[in-house]
């Protein structure tokens, strides 16, 4: 046993860090450092820079434009990217669609979609959840009926992140409502968002931003060649997708970067007549988060190297530990950041403030995104399988309860 990184791994980390340092546009980094979510164009710009280096499709094999890294390398890369801080690689394209097509897609599908997904020439979104099918995803109702060489799709998706940016959507649809088990009548379809009958309606979230959408399908014609895998076997594709990429699930680099930011601001704000950073209570709280992050870092390494050794490609149920603890830390560090800001983090920076740009800054530059980030990260324990569902998985798959 050795918990240290090898020489090669350290050299790899240095290489990644140097590349990001030299190539991440300063303005993007600065916005991210202040906690702003990346703008659509920021995500595209950065993913294309990475793709030119052969790193955007970080988890794909070389054959399809990936770097062919092992899990430790992938983990190091993701952590460096997050802690830079740089925009995250669009997970819908790279960690979800890509591996699914590589595993289940036809040659034609791979050639048609993979390069564009890696380079973010096409933006994908994930059409799984429905109003009645959240945790119980398999009860989804969106219907696809085959008519000649098309499927006709009718139904509604909800919580579709970035659908308003998206060119394409990978969707779970019901192709056989008569199947004995509800998991057995589901198919995985690729839908062009420009097809007539696709309507995207925004959902504003509690941070005031537009990230979520409802997507309505009314008699949408989808060519049969956009079916991935076999008809009515979409559930296995979905399970593969949801369980496939566990390396990045904890998003530990993000938590680390946020703690760094909190410490920076804590040098500037005061508590009892001295900088907050000197306050014992604050330091204890940071120390606790650092303990938890260290433990998670090692747990993550254990899960990742076990995955590499097993080579059966089956997700380790322990990855639910990473999801639970990783999201708790994302939330805990976002609370830390907001609490550092305190009252200065509470004003809403709406248009009325933006309109006053000619006047001296109303509030410090570090403050505007503290509360929105905290608010939005409440969702981290909801999306990607809620933390309650993750605990159910641990109960069943590990504890045998």
């Amino acid at each position, binding site marked *: 046993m050795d918990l240290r990184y090898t020489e090669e791994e350290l050299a790899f980390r240095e290489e990644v860090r140097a590349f990001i340092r030299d190539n991440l546009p300063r303005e993007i980094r600065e916005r991210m450092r202040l906690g702003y979510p990346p703008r659509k164009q920021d995500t595209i710009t950065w993913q294309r820079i990475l793709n030119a280096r052969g790193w955007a499709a970080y988890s794909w094999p070389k054959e399809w434009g990936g770097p062919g890294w092992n899990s430790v390398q992938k983990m190091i890369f993701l952590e460096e990217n997050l802690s830079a801080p740089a925009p995250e690689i669009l997970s819908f394209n790279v960690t979800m669609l890509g591996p699914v097509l590589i595993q289940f897609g036809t040659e034609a599908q791979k050639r048609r979609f993979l390069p564009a997904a890696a380079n973010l020439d096409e933006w994908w979104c994930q059409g799984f959840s429905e109003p009645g099918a959240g*945790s119980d995803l398999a009860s989804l109702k969106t219907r696809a009926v085959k008519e000649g060489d098309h499927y006709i799709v009718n139904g509604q998706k909800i919580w579709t992140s970035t659908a308003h940016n998206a060119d394409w959507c990978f969707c779970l649809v019901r192709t056989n409502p008569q199947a004995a088990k509800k998991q057995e009548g589901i198919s995985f379809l690729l839908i062009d968002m420009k097809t007539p009958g696709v309507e995207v309606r925004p*959902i504003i979230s509690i941070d005031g931003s537009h990230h979520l959408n409802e997507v309505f399908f009314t008699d949408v014609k989808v060519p049969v060649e956009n079916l991935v895998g076999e008809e009515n076997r979409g559930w296995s594709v979905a399970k593969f997708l949801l369980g496939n990429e566990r390396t990045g699930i904890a998003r530990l680099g993000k938590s680390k970067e946020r703690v760094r930011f909190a410490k920076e601001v804590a040098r500037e704000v005061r508590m009892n007549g001295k900088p907050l950073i000197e306050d014992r*209570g604050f330091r204890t709280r940071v120390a606790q988060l650092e303990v938890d992050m260290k433990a998670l870092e090692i747990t993550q390494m254990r899960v990742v190297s076990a995955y590499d050794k097993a080579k059966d490609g089956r997700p380790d149920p322990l990855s639910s530990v990473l999801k639970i603890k990783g999201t708790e830390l994302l939330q805990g560090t976002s609370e830390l950041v907001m609490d550092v800001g305190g009252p200065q983090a509470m*004003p809403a920076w709406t248009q009325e403030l933006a309109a006053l740009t000619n*006047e001296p800054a*109303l509030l410090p530059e570090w403050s505007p995104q503290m*509360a929105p980030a905290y608010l939005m990260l409440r969702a981290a324990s909801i999306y990607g399988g809620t933390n309650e569902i993750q605990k159910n998985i641990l109960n069943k798959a590990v504890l045998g309860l």
Partner: protein
Amino acid sequence: MDFDLTDDQRLLGESVARLLADEYAFDQRKKLLGVAPGWSEALWARYAELGLLGLPIPEEYGGFGGGAVDVMLLQQAFGRHLVLEPFLATVVLGATAIREAGDKALQEEFLPAIAAGECKLAFAHYERQSRYDITDVLTTATPRNGGWVLEGGKSVVLHGDCADKLVVSARTGGSREEAEGISLFLVEGEAEGLLRRGYALRDGTRAAELSLSGAAARLIGPKDQALPIVERVVQAGIAAMAGEVIGAMEAMQAMTLDYLKTRQQFGRPIGDNQALQHRAAEMLVAMEQGRSMAMLAAMSLSEADPAERARSISMAKVGVGQAGRFVSQNAVQLHGGIGMTDEYAVGHYFRRVMVIEHMFGDTAWHLDRLADQVQ
């Protein structure tokens, strides 16, 4: 001990609940947000008619002579409906400052007008650099022409944008973080040399940044010795906001329970899962602990010993803050995706509780106060 409400208190609670049920449904409230002034002037007049704006004001000044418990009950009802009007700023913070600082003449000038809904106040003490530190005052006051002028700035002044007059703290002596040398002043909302920049807080309630450059001011209360008054005002604010958090928690708890019973996943209500039943029970535990602390805050306002009073108020701020955070985070969690939307009320309660937690000292700040006193 006696936890019973008087008949008058029960009646008050019922009549306010009726009014708000009619006038403050979630959609009605949403219409007020984002349209100047960000709250309802018509309802403000109704509150005055019903005597709510005079609730804690002595009868001799046209009020109802109610106590902290009455204010807590009213604030609880306001919390359940996320009321946006400047009650806290005017009737709690402003009126407390006038009562604590003012002589009879000043009280006669202001308190009846407040009770009648004819005068809105704001309390401008905290500054951009001070965060929660109550003695960290840099704004200065200089004598001029028999009066005073103020220089400096005040930050996140609750309802500071709409106040007719502002109670502003400034240094007449001493230096930053000294307890001595802080005085209180009245500044006209339209005073020359006062720049007010209003905005909404994350929960939709209004606040303002103030820049003071030579604004004319009128000294109220003792020169250099106003810190105890500032403390009183802040304590009254903490107690009132504690009531509001209780109301917000009650609303979130009720919505969550309803959702657990109606939302179906895996062919049954999600509330059939014992994991969620336990979470709901933990929310109840937290809420009841918080409620007790809100009562402590209300009762301790009349405590004569300043140290004892400050201690109880800090305990209450911690208890209510922690309960509020726990209940609101779990209310969102148990709603799943719908809890994350602006269309749904839970997120609005969540943000109100979040904003309150970061006013007048957060959990860590008050815990630190208490830690200093552990014996």
